[in-house]
């Protein structure tokens, strides 16, 4: 924010700048993460437990693996999981939200009941159960995230659709002989697209953090994959002997990415809907 004050940017411009910077970072991380092969994190016992230096920016671990490469690969995995999970759960919430708002009272009470049910159980608990039921690994985590993060967005979409549906021009459209499906597609969807975009942006950091949390607990991705959660949980044992860099750098990178998504999501929400931003 200091930077944006010096450059004399308004909220729109600073949000745009943040979006550009973030997308460059995310693309770079994801691409390098996928392009790196296993050689980059091969163990090299000659440089075990090295502190951060110019050869190894983030230091090396107890097997001599370069922590910088491991962090990048872990982040790319986390972002992948987060992206697929967030989009998956946004799709679920769009479908359920629209069904609840347009298909009558019975459908509405069923969906509302489902939303309450999922909101009443802590995310992490249902996430662990679902991930476990799908057999863990990448698939389990993605399904777990998609199936647990939809309720809050579904509730927002449901109320938004209900509000749009009662507007005069939608009712006029019914009297023009248009079908429900046509109205949903032409009148209602364009009105809720901004909410959906903000919703996905705000779901994303949640998804990443929960993925890291479940993996940290040992119930998510398998240990040979360099996920951030695994890096953190492995490094716990070495913190007491002073190897702080094992947990510090991956943790801080995760935090920065999550925080930036959160901030951009908030800013966008404020720009799109200034009246309801403080809700």
């Amino acid at each position, binding site marked *: 924010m200091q930077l944006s004050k010096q450059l004399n940017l308004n909220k729109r411009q600073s949000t745009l700048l943040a979006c550009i910077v973030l997308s460059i970072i995310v693309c770079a991380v994801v691409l390098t993460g996928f392009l790196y092969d296993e050689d980059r994190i091969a163990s090299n016992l000659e440089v075990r437990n090295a502190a951060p230096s110019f050869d190894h920016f983030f230091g090396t671990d107890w097997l001599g693996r370069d922590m910088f490469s491991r962090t990048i690969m872990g982040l790319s995995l986390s972002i992948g999981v987060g992206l697929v999970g967030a989009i998956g759960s946004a799709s679920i919430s769009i479908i359920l939200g629209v069904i609840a708002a347009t298909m009558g009272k019975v459908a509405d009470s069923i969906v509302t009941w489902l939303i309450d049910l999922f909101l009443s159980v802590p995310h992490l608990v249902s996430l662990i159960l679902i991930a476990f039921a799908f057999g863990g690994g990448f698939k389990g985590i993605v399904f777990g995230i998609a199936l647990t993060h939809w309720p809050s967005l579904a509730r927002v979409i449901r109320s938004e659709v209900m509000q749009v549906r009662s*507007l*005069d*021009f939608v*009712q*006029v*459209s019914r*009297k*023009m*002989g*248009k079908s429900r499906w046509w109205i949903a597609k032409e*009148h209602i969807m*364009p*009105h809720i697209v901004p909410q959906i975009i903000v919703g996905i942006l705000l779901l994303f950091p949640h998804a990443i953090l929960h993925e890291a949390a479940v993996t940290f607990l040992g119930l998510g991705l398998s240990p040979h994959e360099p996920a951030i959660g695994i890096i953190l949980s492995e490094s716990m044992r070495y913190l007491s002997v002073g190897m702080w860099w094992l947990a510090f750098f991956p943790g801080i990178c995760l935090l920065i990415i999550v925080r930036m998504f959160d901030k951009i999501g908030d800013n966008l929400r404020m720009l799109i809907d200034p009246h309801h931003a403080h809700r």
Partner: protein
Amino acid sequence: MLLEANHVSFRYGTEPWLFRHVDFKIKTGEIVGLVGPSGSGKTTFGRLLAGYETPHEGSITLDGSPVPSNRYHPIQLVFQHPEKAVNPRWKMRKIVNEGWEPDEALLEKLGIMQEWLERWPNELSGGELQRFCVARALGTNTRFLIADEMTTMLDAITQAQIWHAVLEIAEKRNMGVLVISHDHHLIHRLCTRIIEFKDLV
């Protein structure tokens, strides 16, 4: 064709009855004026006739049978506030063509300029938007037009222009028009029959 309201009663939720057992008839080709004090339920009655609300008791019938609800509604309502009756994310061309495609002659008669068709609703004034709403409601299958304070917020010249066009079309197509208004002068000028809403209740 005959549009009838038979013993119609209505209330919002569990509030007191707005009106009970109202009987009303209008034939195609008639221009009927409906007057009454504010809050007496004229607008709600118009919404009932056009199918925007369903009566708690009684029925609305067209030639003795219920009005079909899943295709173009033969009774069209023009709202008092055109700003709310158009989708702010659509261009005017799409809005006016939603139910049917009015030809250029009709648009010109209502005083709609061709270049307005490419504009967004917030680039036009209330009066200009109202002309589009009227054009939209005058589909070829419209048998009755319900004008709920349709020209209240327009200046005299625009009012005259719009009503002139509407009456001409109504006569040509043998369409019935129900004019709901506070403006006695307007109603006396336009209508063949004038009804006090309190006499109906």
